[in-house]
C-alpha cells in the first residue's frame, strides 16, 4: 500500500483517537468520561475532514449534529441521574459590560456583517454578535419567540432542499431560501446560548 | 362485547384468513400469482387463522363454570 498524505493523516487521527480511548478506559468519573468522549468524537470529524473536498463539509455537518445531539442527551441524562437540576445560575454582573455602548455597537456590526455573508458562516458570525449582546444585557423576554423563529427558518431550509430535489429549475429561489433559512436558524439557535447564560434568580 | 359476538368475530377472522390463504395458494399453483405474493399473504393469514380458529373453538357461548374460589 502506498503511503501518501491521506494515509499519514489517517494514522495521526487514529493515534489521536486511540489516545482518547485509552484515557476513556482509565477514567472513572462519569462527567469526565462524557467530556473525553466528546474529545474522541472530534477525531471522527477529523477523519471526515481528511476527505478534503466540498463533500467533507456536507458530511461533517450531519455528523456534528448527531454527535452534539447525543452529547446533549447524555448531559441531560447526567443531570437527571445525579439529581443536580435546579441549581441557580448567575449572569455576568459586570457594570462596564452592562452600561457600555460597545456592547450594542459590536453586536450590531457583527449581525450586519453576518447577514451580508449569509449562509452557515454568516449565521455563525451574526450569532456571535447576538450571544455577546444577550450575555452583556440580561434578556428577560420570551425564549419561545426565538425558538419559534429558529424552527420556522429550519423548515424553510428543509423546504428549499425539497425544491432542489423535485424542481431543480427553481434552483436560485431554493438557494436563497436555504441561505436565509440557515442564517436565521444558526443565529437564533446559537443566541439561545447567550440567553441561557444567566437567568435572574 | 358479549361472548357470542366475540366467538363469531373469531370465526370471521379464521374464515377470512383461511380463504385468503387458500385463494393465494390456488392462484399461485395456477400460475396467476408470483410465489412471493403467496408467501406475503400467508405470513399475515396463517397467524391470524391459527389464533382466530383457536379463539373460536375455545370460546363458550353459555354461562361460565362457577370459578374455583379456594379451599
Amino acid at each position: 500500500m502506498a503511503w501518501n498524505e491521506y494515509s499519514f493523516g489517517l494514522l495521526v487521527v487514529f493515534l489521536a483517537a486511540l489516545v482518547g480511548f485509552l484515557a476513556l478506559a482509565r477514567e472513572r468519573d462519569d462527567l469526565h468520561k462524557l467530556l473525553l468522549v466528546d474529545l474522541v468524537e472530534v477525531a471522527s470529524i477529523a477523519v471526515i475532514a481528511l476527505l478534503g473536498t466540498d463533500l467533507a463539509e456536507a458530511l461533517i455537518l450531519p455528523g456534528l449534529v448527531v454527535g452534539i445531539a447525543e452529547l446533549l442527551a447524555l448531559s441531560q441524562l447526567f443531570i437527571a441521574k445525579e439529581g443536580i437540576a435546579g441549581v441557580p445560575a448567575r449572569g455576568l454582573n459586570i457594570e462596564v459590560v452592562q452600561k457600555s455602548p460597545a456592547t450594542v455597537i459590536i453586536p450590531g456590526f457583527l449581525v450586519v456583517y453576518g447577514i451580508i455573508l449569509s449562509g452557515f458562516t454568516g449565521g455563525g458570525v451574526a450569532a456571535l454578535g447576538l450571544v455577546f449582546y444577550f450575555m452583556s444585557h440580561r434578556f428577560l423576554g420570551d425564549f419561545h419567540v426565538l425558538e419559534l423563529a429558529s424552527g420556522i427558518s429550519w423548515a424553510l431550509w428543509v423546504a428549499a432542499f425539497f425544491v432542489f430535489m423535485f424542481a431543480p429549475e427553481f434552483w436560485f429561489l431554493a438557494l436563497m431560501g436555504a441561505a436565509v433559512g440557515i442564517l436565521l436558524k444558526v443565529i437564533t439557535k446559537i443566541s439561545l446560548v447567550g440567553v441561557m447564560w444567566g437567568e435572574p434568580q | 362485547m358479549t361472548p357470542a359476538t366475540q366467538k363469531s368475530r373469531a370465526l370471521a377472522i379464521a374464515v377470512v384468513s383461511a380463504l385468503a390463504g387458500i385463494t393465494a395458494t390456488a392462484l399461485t399453483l395456477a400460475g396467476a400469482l408470483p410465489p412471493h405474493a403467496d408467501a406475503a399473504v400467508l405470513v399475515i393469514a396463517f397467524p391470524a387463522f391459527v389464533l382466530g380458529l383457536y379463539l373460536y373453538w375455545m370460546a363458550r357461548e353459555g354461562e361460565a363454570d362457577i370459578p374455583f374460589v379456594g379451599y
Partner: protein
Amino acid sequence: MNEIGGIPLFYLEFGDIVAYFSPFTLALFLLALVFSVFVIVSRPERQIDIAFGADAFFAKDISLAELRFRRFMAIACGLACMGAMVTGDVFDFTLFVSLVGICNVGIVAAVKNHHVQDAAYQYGLVALAGTVPLFSAAAIVVTTTGSLSMLELASPGAPAVPLIARALLVLGVMGEGMAPFYAAKAEMFRAPGAPYVIMCSLSSLLIFLRVTEVVLLL
C-alpha cells in the same frame, strides 16, 4: 456476491440517494414497522415486583407524561431503524445507526430508577464512542472509492472497499448495542414499559443484521 439479500424488488430515489428494497431489507423494514405500530397502539404493561421478605407484591405504574415521552422516543427509534434498513448510502446508514443509539438512551432515560438511568448513561457513552468508527468507516469508504452508494460499490468493477472500513463499520454497530458491548444494555431492560423497551433490543438487532448485509455487499 451481488445479491446477498435477494434481488432488489424496487428502488426509491431521492436525488442521488437511493433507498432499495431487497427481500432481506424489506423483511427487516416491515418488522421495524410492525413493532413501531405496537409502540403506537399498545399501553405499557404494569410490571409486578415481588417484595422480598414479605408476602406482598406491588405494580409499577407509568405516569402519562413519562409514557408520552418514551412513546415518542420509541417511535423515533422505529423511524431511525426503518431508515437504516432501506438506505442505500453508507453515510446515511451510519447517521441512522447513531440516531438509533440516541433514541435508545432516550427510551429509558425518563425512567425514575437510578440503576436504569445509570445503565442508560453508560450505554450512551459506548454508543457515542461507537460513532467514531462509524463515521470513520464512511469517510474512508468515500475517500478510497469516491462513492458512498452501496449499489455502485456492489456493482462489478467498482473499486474495492478496504478491509479496515468494513471492520470499523461492524465495530461501530457493535458499539451501538451488540455483544460484547451489550452489558450495559441488559440492565436497561429492567425498565417497565415493554413496547418501548423491546424497541431498544429490536433496533440493535436490526442494525446488526443490516450491517452484515452491507459488509458482505461492499
